[in-house]
């Protein structure tokens, strides 16, 4: 795979748009509670109608993340799991026929240490479709953008509420796959509702940007998914899912996947 047009994630959004549909992008901490569990959940989500998912690669110092995702990362790292094993799981998921568009959220600390080229090669060989590097803002992203594109990987960039309008458009121009609108100035975590200002900002962005727009940070229930999807192409739900995994992590893998899957179905309902 070395062309963005044949990228699974890009195609998934194209098909959704052609069908006039919006989507839910569930986030999973890779390897939480373990890698077999993550894979089982991805397969379960796909069966329920999810098209694109985000995989958080555990990092020791995730400064954009709230307590729920942070503590899942800490637990996974304490078990000894590292990034290579996550990519191995993705490879096995693909070998098993998994078709979700997968965006790997990964700190630049990890990317840099692996070597940008080598890391992107590993991602694309494993079957990752997009990288999303939350601590690599536009000013520093040139190299990744170029190298990702030449490997047919999307590079998803983020726009924050604090981003000035001209810069929003520039970020959207450089982003591939989709552009991630961060709904609040702050860290990840569950919030009951989104502000009108957020929805208005996304609607405004929509009028200038053709690339799919997904909204995340704080989206945590079916009502907010529905709200977001009035103006955006997708709603990203992270902490609310990881929180439920935390509550049920001692269940056998199949039961855990079913539990979490049931919640994902609730979140999907407004967009199916």
């Amino acid at each position, binding site marked *: 795979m070395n062309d963005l047009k044949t990228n699974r994630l890009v195609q998934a959004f194209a098909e959704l748009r052609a069908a006039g549909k919006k989507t839910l992008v569930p986030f999973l901490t890779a390897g939480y509670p373990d890698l077999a569990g993550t894979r089982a959940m991805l397969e379960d989500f796909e069966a329920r109608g999810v098209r694109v998912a985000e995989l958080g690669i555990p990092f020791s110092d995730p*400064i954009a993340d709230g307590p729920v995702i942070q503590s899942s990362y800490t637990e996974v790292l304490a078990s000894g799991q590292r990034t290579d094993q996550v990519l191995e799981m993705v490879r096995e998921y693909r070998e098993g026929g998994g078709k979700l568009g997968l965006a790997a959220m990964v700190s630049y600390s990890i990317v840099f240490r692996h070597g940008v080229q080598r890391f992107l090669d590993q991602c694309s060989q494993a079957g990752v479709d997009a990288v999303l590097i939350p*601590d690599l803002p536009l000013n520093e992203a040139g190299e990744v953008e170029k190298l990702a594109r030449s490997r047919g990987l999307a590079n998803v960039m983020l726009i924050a509420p*604090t981003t000035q309008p001209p810069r929003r458009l520039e970020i959207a121009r450089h982003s591939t796959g989709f552009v991630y609108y961060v709904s609040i*100035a702050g860290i990840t975590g569950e919030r009951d509702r989104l502000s009108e200002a957020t929805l208005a900002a996304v609607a405004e962005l929509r009028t200038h940007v053709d690339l799919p727009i997904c909204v995340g940070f704080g989206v945590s229930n079916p009502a907010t998914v529905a709200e977001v999807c009035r103006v955006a192409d997708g709603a990203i739900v992270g902490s609310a899912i990881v929180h439920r995994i935390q509550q049920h992590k001692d269940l056998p893998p199949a039961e855990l996947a079913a539990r979490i899957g049931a919640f994902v179905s609730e979140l999907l309902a407004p967009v199916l």
Partner: protein
Amino acid sequence: MTTASDNATRAGYFGPYGGQYVPETLMAALEQLSAEYDKAMGDPGFRGDLDRCYREIAGRPSELYFCRRLTEALGGAKIYLKREDMNHTGAHKINNTLGQALLTLRMGKKRVIAETGAGQHGVATAMAAAVFGLDCDVYMGTEDIRRQSLNVFRMRLMGARVIGVSSGQCTLKDALNEAMRDWMGSVEHTHYIIGTVAGPHPFPAMVREFQSCIGREARKQMLSAEGRLPDLIVACVGGGSNAAGIFAPMIADASVRMIGVEAGGRSLNLGDHAASLSLGRPGVLHGSLSYILQDADGQTADVHSVSAGLDYPGVGPELAYWKDIGRVGYTTCGDDEAIDAVVTLSRAEGIIPALESAHAVAEAIKQAPKMKKGQILLVNLSGRGDKDCNEIASILERKGVKI
């Protein structure tokens, strides 16, 4: 990998090091800060205000002190101390917090936050917040709250809230993470006063500039005391702010050798020390590319030092640049040597150094006898040891040393 030539001429870079590796949410604030800082530095009014704060609040200039008895005992170079321990609040940290507090006022922000390890930066931030009427929250690892309890009390007494951080190793790195997270959500009305020359641009250059009063004064004081510059300057390195502050104004003076001393901790095995420049490699942490201690996956390594202010897995990007171009040498000093240096300096000169500064003193004790009698060795005594007295007492007791 990004190469030196790619980044050498980009703003915010020192050779290949530096940059702004932070979430997009913070970019607007960094831009605002850069713009305000540039404007302030070109404004004689700001410089005048800062000089007055240095004089009237910090008590600058700090003295240059000749260690007569220590010099005689070691029988080599003449040892001088730059007495940052004599500053108000007890360390060099005040030089930076005064500068950043003035910028906070200029930006119209009403609240400041800070991370602290030894508590000296927290105390200096709390003090500046009290002087200028700002709200102040300080993040501090719970392990550091234990070992630097005097400073916790001082911060609270001056009206700051001290928020314990119990993630990771419960030390400086974890406090910095939590302060960044606070800033992510409060950036519109809050300024984050980073306490060292690390973090995203413009912090490394800005904090170095605010700390450069140390080296500018020392340069002048040396010339008037000895008619020449020192042969060697030694400073301890945590994030690198006191070292950058004394080195930068003499970095162009080729005759002056410079050594930065990192925490050698218990041993030089990963996890037992905090010597990022001596034993780490280039990587990204807390907003900039520099030397860091991490595993092969890019996960930040555990670190250890007896000194809370040096107990940090990263270091400022400019110090990394100085390493690569061979301008500054870096070495380590173990926990035990630092404790010994506290005792030595206390007995020889009646000066109780902070545990951080004791790392520099220990290196000076090693270097002085190797130097010629007329040569000059200048040590940046970055802070005083009052805050460490309980910790030092219990360590000495464990070692069976009678005081």
